[in-house]
């Protein structure tokens, strides 16, 4: 497998710290899934894939049914009060979990890095937020850094490329983990696209409020995906994939935008 592009070298600090933090965590406790609002409402097959994966690995999964949204859409648009409402609810639902896994880098970033700042310094809410921050992981991060698993027994016959989502890459430092998992998928051939680490142009409400700019950025990304000759583009954030798939479809391209959970589960 071709090694991760140069820009990633600076991003991998996160995993070293996580490994240390998790030495004490009990890996046999059940995993609580935060499924993400987009997966829940638009891409339930990704949720199914995740459940399937955990079952294959004999990991017990707990999915709180009251969950809705982490609050990021409100937060990115500047609506902090509304985002805080969502944050409080998230904390209440998830703080009793041992470990929280989520198939979205941007949601994990929201909980991990933005939640504490929503609350007053030293307040009880902030303490609770920090406690939850410490135990939430993105899916590929969870497998590689927490479980120490790089081969989940998956197979996929085809040529694929990988898109680095912004929050996952730059804020969480996750770049090698998905690539390691993909490398071990039997039958897969990974081709790195040019500028994999460049934004796809989603940016939340940006995509509908500044559609010309969003489209222009996306077009460049889609051109680069097509140029790899891949059958599928893989990502760890359904918002990016939704964005990319939307344009691939509009262009009548047969390329599929797949979540890493789907590749690993064999969906």
């Amino acid at each position: 497998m071709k090694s991760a592009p140069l820009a990633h070298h600076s991003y991998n600090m996160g995993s070293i710290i996580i490994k240390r933090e998790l030495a004490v965590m009990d890996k046999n406790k059940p995993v609580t899934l935060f499924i993400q609002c987009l997966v829940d409402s638009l891409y339930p097959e990704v949720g199914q894939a995740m459940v399937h994966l955990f079952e294959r690995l004999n990991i017990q999964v707990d999915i709180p049914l009251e969950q809705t949204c982490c609050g990021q859409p409100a937060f990115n648009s500047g609506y902090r009060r509304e985002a805080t409402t969502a944050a409080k609810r998230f904390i209440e639902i998830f703080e009793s979990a041992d470990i929280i896994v989520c198939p979205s880098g941007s949601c994990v970033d929201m909980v991990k890095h933005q939640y504490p700042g929503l609350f007053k310094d030293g307040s009880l809410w902030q303490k609770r937020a920090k406690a939850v921050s410490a135990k939430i992981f993105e899916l590929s991060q969870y497998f590689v850094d927490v479980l120490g698993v790089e081969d989940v027994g998956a197979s996929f016959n085809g040529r694929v490329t990988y898109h680095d989502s912004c929050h996952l890459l730059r804020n969480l430092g996750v770049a090698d983990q998905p690539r390691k998992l993909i490398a071990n998928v039997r039958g897969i051939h990974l081709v790195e696209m040019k500028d994999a680490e460049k934004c796809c142009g989603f940016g939340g409400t940006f995509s509908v409020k500044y559609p010309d700019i969003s489209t222009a950025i996306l077009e460049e990304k889609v051109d680069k995906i097509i140029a790899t000759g891949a059958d599928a583009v893989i990502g760890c954030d359904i918002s990016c994939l939704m964005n990319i798939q939307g344009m691939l479809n509009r262009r009548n391209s047969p390329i599929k935008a797949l979540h890493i959970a789907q590749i690993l589960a064999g969906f």
Partner: protein
Amino acid sequence: MSEIKTEFYKQNAAKAIKDPVLQHALFDVQNRLGPATALAYKNLPEGMALRQKAHEIRQFAINHLDILLETLVQKIRDRGGKVYFAKDAADATAYCLKIAKENQVKMVVKGKSMVTEEIGLNKILESNQIEVNETDLGEYIIQLAGETPSHIIAPAIHKTRKEVAQLFTQKLGIPYCEDPPVLTQAARKALRKKFLAADMGLSGCNLACAETGHITTVSNEGNIRMSTTMPKVHMAFMGMERVVARLEDHDALFRLLSRGAAAQNMAGYVSYIGGPRTEDQLDGPDQFHLVILDNGRSRILADPKFREILLCIRCAACLNVCPAYGKIGGHAYGYPYSGPIGAVITPLFVGINRAKDLCCGEPLCGACKNACPVDIDLPRMLLALRAKLADGDPKWGVTRANSMEKIAFQIWSLVIQNRKVYDLALKTGSLIQNLLPKKNGMITTMPFVFKGWTQSRDIKPLARVSFLTQWKNRENKP
């Protein structure tokens, strides 16, 4: 004061996106400089950690700005230099005009200086019958073309060699030639005359050194050296935040600046200027004036959330990696500062409501923070600006930008608090989307504000059964 066109962000962005020449130029700049800068940082002996050190150096300077400026100024005055503290643009330009008139200045040569663009200096001088000659090649080109800069370091990046050739033939009368060395030579010849005949030279200041009492200027062309050596009067303009405390601070900062700006180890020319020619020296200006400018910076300084933006050293590394800038170019930002730095500082300078599209009109990808040699958290400040637009802020004079959007998110926050209500909303959405046009199972047109999505993309319809409902059914939970 520079002209403000921030209200036209969307229109100008759309125009830029449709301009194939500009698109090619922007792609070229980012393709060359973006990765090259990342590599240059990596190859530093200290690696990326040097950026953190630079951040601390600049933070220290900002936190002690009062005494550092006083120290700097005292030392310059001790050497016979003059210092003028300018509250705002009008104050600064008035002083420049005054000194120009006192010295019967008819013609001025100018090194590239963003701060002089900010205060609209050229126009003021020209309307007082003083000829202004931009000497940085990029600025010279756009001055001849009657345009404004589109990039902080390479102002004429949007112009092809063909366009420059046509411009030079028209304005300089030289035979048509597209070869950059030939064009550069023509500019060299034309500007040399100006350097040698100018009455006054104007420059900016890259980073002053308080400890030794010097300003510094940085260039590759030598135009700033020429402008600040040959004329009798040298006036330098400095944003008040452009200072470091200690001489050795420049070690980290110049190494990073050169890499951030143009992936160089060190810029071609760096000059420490601390005063006019001394009695026993053969050359150098007889008068040295330093204009220290506030023009909104003290207000930023007073806000702990935004103080960090004053760490900026104007290297444009953020422009070279920004996906938004890479498509819309510098003119869309409607003010001299473009790219991510422009998106933060322009609203703080001209009005957050007025420049709201600048801080809302990018995807917040974070590439800028990574590229910044001083490790400034630009995304954090963009989010802070968005928060002010969402709910208003009397301190910064911000009124809520979009009441409908606020109501929408208030409703949203009610809906997401209750799973039953949320499920009802999903069901309702499912029903409504049956009315929307589809192709191969994907929705092709969405109504209201969402049509921005479907202008170029399809979207998957809401699942008939949400994942959590499926899970609930599977687990037979009530």
